[in-house]
């Protein structure tokens, strides 16, 4: 099929800031490409590395984790922990041959609808450049797809 590659991105958004930010983007009718699939978590600290790997294995071309700005975390410091894990995880992904740019960690506050849209736009463009996730290819070849 000749149609342009449209990456699938899985986004983990914390309930208190980033999810609200995404809401605001919508409310303010700020347009961004429809490639993101949002999963709401109470706190970005909840995002287990396993979820992220799972996303890639399931065929995601990119993963976004968005949490409150430092200091804003509804749970005091969950967002820091997410941040720290993210950095480690990028290294890990490289081991798997997944470009670290496919994982993006962002602070998006409830008032940053515009920023949220920008983040998604950028990510979609970046990943379009990278092409489909190598992991996805492998997964399909090795037939590890979850029924």
């Amino acid at each position, binding site marked *: 099929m000749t149609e342009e590659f449209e990456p699938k991105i899985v986004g983990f958004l914390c309930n208190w800031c980033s999810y609200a930010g995404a809401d605001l983007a919508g409310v303010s009718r700020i347009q961004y490409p429809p490639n993101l699939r949002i999963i709401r978590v109470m706190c970005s600290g909840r995002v287990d590395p396993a979820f992220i790997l799972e996303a890639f294995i399931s065929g995601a071309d990119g993963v976004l984790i968005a949490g409150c700005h430092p200091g*804003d975390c509804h749970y005091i410091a969950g967002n820091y922990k997410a941040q720290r894990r993210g950095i480690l995880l990028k290294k890990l992904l490289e081991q798997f041959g997944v470009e670290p740019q496919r994982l993006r960690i962002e602070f998006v506050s409830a008032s940053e609808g515009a920023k949220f849209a920008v983040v998604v736009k950028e990510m979609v463009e970046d990943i379009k450049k990278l092409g489909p996730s190598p992991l996805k290819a492998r997964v399909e070849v090795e037939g590890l797809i979850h029924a």
Partner: protein
Amino acid sequence: MEAKQSVLIIGGGIAGIQASLDLASRGMKVYLVEKTPSIGGRMSQLDKTFPTMDCSMCILAPKMIECFRHPNITLLTYAEVQEVKGSAGNFRVKILKKPRFVDLEKCTGCGECAQHCPVEVPNEFDMGLGVRKAIYVPFPQAVPLKYTIDDENCVKCRLCQRMCKAGAINYDQPPETIDLNVGAIIVATGFELFDAQTRSEYGYGKYQNVLTSLEFERLLSASGPTGGHLLRLSDGRIPRRIAFIQCVGSRSLKGGVSYCSSACCVYATKEGVLIREHNPECEVYVFYNDLKVFGKGFQEFVNRAKNEWGVKYVRALPGEVVEDPKTGDLTIWYEDTTENVTKSMKADIVVLCPALVPRVTSKELAGILGLELDEFGFMKSRDPLFAPVDTNLPGIYICGYCQGPKDIPESVAQASGAAARAAEAIVAAGKEAH
């Protein structure tokens, strides 16, 4: 709900919200009256809050929604207190509910009406910098998320009525009077800005690039008229230098109020830091007299602003601001009192920090309630030392800025204080009854 167990709270800002939640969550019935179409008050207009730089709306919105959802809280927005009779334990209150011309039950807040409304008017929420329609919600996170037709500007084209699938528009909606019976009353009517135009030497209202701090707050806000892009309104240019002027009308024995508004030094610092975040190229100068850093973490915040963010402080209240009519650039004349030299500085935007003053309407409200005001129009405490939230009348309590200058945490703590006193009064009334 019997009168003794219910409380009337006047003012839907952060203080009124906190008092409402405190009382409601302990099982008391609360009527929260707000004269605008949405609760949220001043705090909802702020971009960030000092000294933590919390996003204001992020931390406020959940509380607003909690108020809306709480089974013990009845929101009476777009409403005003008309008459109060009776005494502690048993007040009889008349509330005037102004017509929204929109059926609260039917309106789903989808916004289709506003999308098609042809009338654009300056948006109060953005301090008039942005525009809204004649049918509007004050801001996207408004609570309740219900639309209101502002009668003055509506041209009755009925487009909204045609667009509204829910059939919520009702041009014939009459004003409504509600009778309440409450055991206690809490007043939390907050503040407004001193009219910066009275200090004509700064050219506010005459020069487009001279703004008040609240206008500037909206200009900084991601949800503001420029979507958080820091631009000059006169020509859309990116500012290279922004100057803040403190004490515009405050600490003034003439042409203003004699007290210190208490928040300006630090919120100017906050806005200064935000500017540097937006655009590190843009210089920030804060012209002050005494830097008021008395609050928890304030001095540390100012130190960070100086050392980490490069916000510059000049001990001087400028004499005047003059615009170059060709460029719209502003020249500030001042004496640097620590360098002992009088000089001028060019700036792209000048932000005035006007005195924060009690609501003009508080006089009228005090009249209705029978409360005493002090010389500035603040609600008077029974004893400024040991009964700060009590008034001359038992059963009526005050909190937040309407009681005197304070910042958000002080307002929140005091709101809880007023709630405690209201609860006490109700417990006492209960005892008498038995």
